[in-house]
Every structure is written in C-alpha cells, then in structure tokens.
C-alpha cells in the first residue's frame, strides 16, 4: 500500500459549525443537512481529497470521542428532562453515521468501519484496510481520524494497493512523510468575523 493523498483540518473550541459548513461547501455543493459537528469534521477531512478517491475504496473511520454535543443533547432530553430525543440526533449518535455520510457523498459502497481510537489508531486503521485489500474487496482505502477535546483535529489518508510500495508509519505525520498534506486551520470565530 502507498499513501497517495492526505488532508488535515485543525481548529479550536470556538470554531463554529457554520465555519465548518462554509468550508465544506468548497468540496460539496450541497452538504448533508442535520448533521453534527463530528460528521462535519469527518466530511471535511474526507472530501478535501475526494478527487483521488475511486469507487473501489473502503472507508475506515476512527474517533477518540463520541459526537460529544450530540450525546449531551440526547442525554439531557431523555435522562434529565424526560423528553423524547430528536430523531436526527438519535441517528447521528450512532458512531458510524459519519462513515455513512462520507460514503454517500463519495459514492463508496464497499467496506465501511468505525473504530475507537487509541495511541495506535493509524496502525489499526491501516491493518484493517490491508485486510480488505488482501481479501481483494478493495483497491483503495480512505482512513479518517477525528479527535475533539479542547480543539479538534480531523485527518484523512488515502491509501492505494501497490505491489512495490508499502506505507509505513505509526502516526499521521510519518505515514504521510512522502507526500504533501492538504492542511487547513480554522482560526477562532471571533477572528473570522
């Protein structure tokens, strides 16, 4: 496998969802409606390199946290206020919702996994992708990782099967050492106004 494209988006807690949506419109004329922050971040990382993605591509998404704002809203509705959850929040709370939206936008009908991220997240995503390449079900693999704590980072790496090249690297930077990474940093909302 070799890395053929990569992207990285970073921002801070004050980066608004509107900023994410506006930037996403560079790549998607009609971004999906009623999606949460985690889905927007994942879509940004994936669609920024979509011109390299072919139909025979598997999708492997990882995240450190669940969609935190969605979880908070759901739990407050259901457990604190004894109200019904909003249907779109409930379906967005499923961790693989981000993978669904990426697959829908990029027209990927192949394997689509979501895993929890740990310190070896890039090795694990690469390993799962290699399994499907070995099985012959895909020729490309799009790996996406999101991490939102105080600020956020959303990264994507596109791998392609290659008989001669083998992508090595235990983290994003070393995995992408041989290529140019598309990078975008969101400054705080205040600075953008």
């Amino acid at each position, binding site marked *: 496998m070799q890395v053929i494209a990569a992207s990285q988006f970073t921002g801070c807690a004050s980066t608004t969802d509107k900023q994410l949506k506006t930037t996403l419109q560079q790549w998607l004329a009609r971004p999906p409606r009623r999606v949460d922050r985690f889905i927007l971040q994942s879509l940004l990382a994936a669609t920024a390199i979509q011109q390299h993605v072919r139909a025979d591509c598997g999708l492997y998404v990882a995240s450190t946290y669940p969609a935190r704002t969605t979880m908070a809203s759901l739990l407050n509705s259901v457990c604190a206020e004894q109200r019904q959850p909003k249907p779109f929040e409930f379906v967005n709370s499923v961790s693989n919702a981000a993978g669904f939206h990426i697959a829908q936008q990029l027209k990927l009908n192949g394997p689509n996994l979501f895993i929890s991220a740990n310190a070896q997240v890039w090795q*694990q995503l690469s390993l799962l992708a290699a399994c499907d390449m070995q099985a012959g079900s895909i020729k490309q693999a799009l790996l996406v990782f999101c991490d939102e704590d105080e600020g956020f980072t959303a990264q994507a790496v596109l791998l392609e099967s290659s008989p001669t090249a083998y992508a090595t690297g235990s983290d994003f930077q070393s995995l992408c050492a041989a290529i140019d990474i598309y990078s975008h940093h969101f400054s705080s909302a205040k600075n953008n106004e």
Partner: protein
Amino acid sequence: MSAVYLHSAVLRSALADNLADAALAIQQGQTAHYRDFVLHEREQSCRYFSLAQQQPLLEHLHANINSVHSQHAIPFADCLLIIASTGLNIHFFETLTQKQNSFNPSDATPLNQLAQSLQNDYGFATAFCINTACTSAANALLYSARLLEQQHYSHVLVLAFETPSEVAIQGFGVLELTSNSGRYQPFHAQRDGLILGESYAAALLSNEPTTQPLARLLGGFSACDTSSLTGTREDGSHINWVMQQALTDAQCRRQDIDLIKLHGTATQANDLAEYNGMQKWLKEDSVPALCVIKPWLGHTLGACGLSETLLLLECLKNQCVPIMPDSQNCSLPLLQTATWPLQQTRVLANFFGFGGNNASIIFEAGALPCK
C-alpha cells in the same frame, strides 16, 4: 478466506445466564425475561428483554473474559481484544446525567476507555472497539478472522454487549420502530416492531482448532448501502449483493448453504428489504432452511452478530433450531420443525444496521472439513 475456529463461547442473555441453558430454554419453549418501559411524552408501554439480575457492566465483562480463559487458557499478550457494542458505557453516562440532572459535552469519556482498561488489566496485545451499529459484532468476527488469517495475532477475543439504555429505548421509540404488542414476530403478517434486548457475549477465535470448536468461520462480507442512514434499499438488492459477496469470500455456492439466520428485526422496512433480498435464494432448486433468533434474545443491537450466532450454534449442537410460534403466517418460509437432522451445517447469518451497514457471515457448525 481461510477458515478460522470459533470456540470458548459465553452468552448471558435475557433467556438464561449461560449459553447452554439458553439453548435448552428454547427447546423447552421458555421465553426471555422482560421489563416494561414507558416511552416519554407518549405514555406508551414498551417491552425490553433484560437479564433477570442486574450487574455492573465491568463485572459482566470480567466474568466473560475469565469464563473464556477457563475454557481455553491463552497468552493474552498474543491476543487482540475487540469490543463490539453500540452503547459502550452509555449506562454510565445515563446514571451520571440523572445524578447531575444534566450532561455536559466534556463529561463524555473516550470511546476506547473500556477497551484500554481491559487491555491494562489482562495484558492484551492491543484492544479497540468496533461500532458499526447492529453489524458491530458481525464485523468484529469478520475482521478477527482476516487478521488471524494474515497471522497478525494468534487469537482474537471478541466481547460483544449491549446494556439496558434509556437513550436506545426512547430513540427507537421515537423512530416508531418498537413493538406495541410486546410480541416479537419477524416477517409475521402482524409484526409491529422490535424489542430491544440486553446481552453480554464473548468468544475466542483462532487459526488452530480446539478440542470442541463451536464452528469454523468460513468467510463473509460487509459493506455500506448509502441509500439511507437508517435502513437498506427496500428492493433488497444491496442485501442480496452482500450475501453473494460473502459466498464468494467463503468459496461457497448458494446450494452449499443449509441454513440462513435472517436478521429479522420485525420492523416493516427491514423485514421487507430482507424478504426482497431473499427472493433469488427462494428460486433455487434447493432452498436453504430459514430461521430467526431475535424473538428469544430481543434485538441486542451491536452485540447481535455474536449473541445470535452463539445461540444458534449451541442449538445446532443440540440438533435443534429455534421455531417461532405461528411461523406459518410469515412472509418468508421459516422453519417449522425444531429438530435439525444435520451433524454438519453450513450457516449464512445476516446482520444489518443503521449507517447502511449490511453484513453476512458464513459458518460451518460442527467444525468439519469443507464440503
């Protein structure tokens, strides 16, 4: 795919405290233990298949790991741990919300926290969670097999569970997918939705057979149907394609399959899509037998890939298959005789989920050589 072996299994469910008793309970015509919940703002009662005795999640997980280890002692340092669950520690979040009367986004803990904690406690080579909604455990089995095939680990332990969750119950309720009648009847003319279920399942996979493997996993396939976030194409075309790809991966033909375990959620849309997806199979000269498992366990969401598989394999070991009451009034020709005559059975098991994930896994019960 090269076959791998599934063994050292554990299942705690609403039907029984262990796998053997759960299979026996089915043979004796017993049904799952349940509690009733009220859907918020609707004052409508909703059934949930729960364990008879409540226990903290971690106690279940430690008990299941120890039970697997007592059946087959393995060096954990060569073993990958995969957790398959949609809710993970949702019960903890719900308890915290009730205690604080609110939940802040910063209260959400890392998705890998539970896996990391178990990795630290037992010394697993590494550990992560797979969450692809109701195909989580099916994907855990499939990717375990692929990682074993490529010799990345000597064993993989799959822990699959769903705890009782107010968010899940209310969420499926607001989508109007839960049963009002309290009768779980997939494919039945009077089906009216799903009943969620609690379960804690575990199994070990390895390249080498143990003395009594439950089954060989021959292959499978998992893919995303991008037509809808909450369901698959109603015409069944994606389901049929996934089943076909699973056959190819397992190097089987349709006529090699003896029994199909349907996903069968009993929701209108899912059952219709699976009915349509099955039509090509029903036109074969030799139609495989069809069965469902959810009426006995409830829909155990991310765990169903393992909990339903284990219960079916245990039933097959006893040469019986679960028979749903009144199954003659179902759209698909479900089995109507409990006695299962075959010593070796090739099973195709379907699992479909939110996020468009559809998966089919092929097993050989009896762990005998390929046909």
